[in-house]
């Protein structure tokens, strides 16, 4: 392994690394054993605690199928529905904001800048609560609207950063063949910006999907709320197993989409010309949503 910090290890460094591996491995194993023991002591591994997933115990008339249907169809279904609809509208609105913000006159840009800066600095739950109480929307609409407003602001910034990062020659060439500002923006720059920023956009969708779980707080019956409802029905003894499965579903879905972002990035970099901007996992601090520092000053996703 070559890194900034180390040379290729020699015999002594290799020995030291081996010792580190053994010691570090043992410490991690000990920690894992501690956790497992804590779980065991509290009876988490007893079969009856997990039985609802294949054969709910006697007092309950329901079949395991009902449990799974409740979790996957109702819970995950509600989560994905909210996320899907919000994603579409956030994208559209994000486009509008990006184009608006790139308007040639400063005073035309100001409303777009205000909207972006205002909503980027607010918690998504607050937007959801506002939509539900002040605008009188249904809970589902409120969750979607909250997600749309916030993510549109972020997506607008991602797209703008994508446009700014394009070589100047692109817009110069477009102007040179007589295109107007809007034509240049919409026909030449935006398509390239979308392609460049595809990984960031996909990562932002993961953030959006994660944020649907905030619906839990405002009372939308999504996956986490379904877990809680099942707990209320079956009893506290099943909380851990239900939570475990619910969290696993969330992680599995998000993980697949994150992989998609990584795959898109690799695919983009392979086709050298006009490729995809690297996911700046790091710079934006947050999620890896590729928001580079420049795009993201209000602490975007996470």
């Amino acid at each position: 392994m070559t890194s900034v910090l180390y040379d290729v290890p020699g015999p002594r460094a290799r020995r030291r690394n081996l010792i580190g591996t053994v010691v570090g491995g043992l410490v991690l194993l000990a920690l894992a054993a501690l956790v497992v023991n804590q779980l065991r002591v509290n009876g988490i591994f007893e079969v009856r605690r997990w039985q609802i997933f294949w054969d709910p115990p006697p007092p309950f008339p329901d079949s395991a199928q009902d449990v799974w249907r409740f979790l996957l169809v109702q819970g995950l279904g509600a989560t994905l529905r909210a996320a899907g609809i919000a994603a579409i509208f956030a994208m559209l609105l994000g486009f509008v904001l990006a184009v608006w913000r790139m308007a040639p006159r400063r005073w035309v840009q100001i409303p777009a800048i205000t909207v972006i800066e205002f909503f980027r600095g607010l918690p998504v739950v607050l937007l959801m609560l506002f939509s539900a109480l002040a605008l009188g929307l249904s809970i589902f609409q409120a969750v979607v609207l909250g997600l749309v407003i916030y993510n549109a602001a972020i997506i607008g910034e991602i797209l703008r950063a994508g446009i700014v990062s394009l070589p100047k020659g692109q817009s110069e060439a477009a102007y040179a063949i007589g295109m107007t500002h809007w034509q240049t923006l919409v026909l030449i720059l935006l398509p390239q910006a979308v392609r460049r920023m595809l990984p960031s956009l996909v990562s932002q969708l993961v953030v959006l999907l994660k944020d649907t779980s905030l619906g839990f707080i405002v009372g939308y019956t999504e996956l986490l709320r379904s877990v809680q409802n099942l707990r209320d029905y079956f009893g506290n003894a099943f909380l851990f197993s239900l939570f475990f499965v619910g969290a696993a579903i969330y992680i599995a879905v998000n993980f697949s989409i994150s992989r998609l972002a990584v795959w898109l990035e690799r695919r983009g970099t392979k086709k050298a010309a006009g490729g995809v901007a690297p996911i700046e996992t790091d710079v934006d601090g947050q999620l890896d949503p590729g928001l580079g520092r420049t795009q993201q000053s209000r602490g975007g996703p996470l």
Partner: protein
Amino acid sequence: MDAVIENLPLYWQGFRTTLTLAIVAGLAALVLGTLLGAFRVSPVPPLRAFGATYVELVRNTPLTIVFFFFVFVAPQVGIQVPFFVSAVFALSVYTAAFVCEAVRSGVNSVSVGQAEAARSIGLTFNQTLREVVMPQAFRTIVPPLINIFIALTKNTSVAGGFFVLELFGVGRRLANAYSGDVIAVLLGVAFFYLLITIPSGLLANQVERKVAFAR
């Protein structure tokens, strides 16, 4: 509007709780995240794997789930703490993953030649790290850290859904009490959030510009 003015003390209390949460969790995340970041750039494979797994796992988990774990599930396995402490745990565990990534990329952003040059003039590993790599990495790390802090501030609102009376919790309570004045009440809450997030954002931009100049 009256609802906001009458309840300014409550807002103030919520604001302080939010700020306390953000700062305490931020510091804890900074320590934990730096440790994890060190794991991720260490030459010892199990530590690297641990750091990578942690980051990957936490990043794909919604914060609400982390809160749910610490507030509802953890008591079942014998970990019983006040709600405020649960909130600090949840926020710092979650934020640490992002701090870790910032640290790792900061270290990786220092060009290899720097460390090679340091070693070739005979600096030891510790000297290389302390005198050459870290000062340069630090510059790259600060702006994203501020952004992480901003995101953390916004994330404290989730604690409001889990029994901590911070700004969002205050907003929800007041919105229920003054149903005629919901808009003013919630705009008041928004104002206090922006009071933290916008100046921090400007600070991040400022620092970033300085750093860019220094390069």
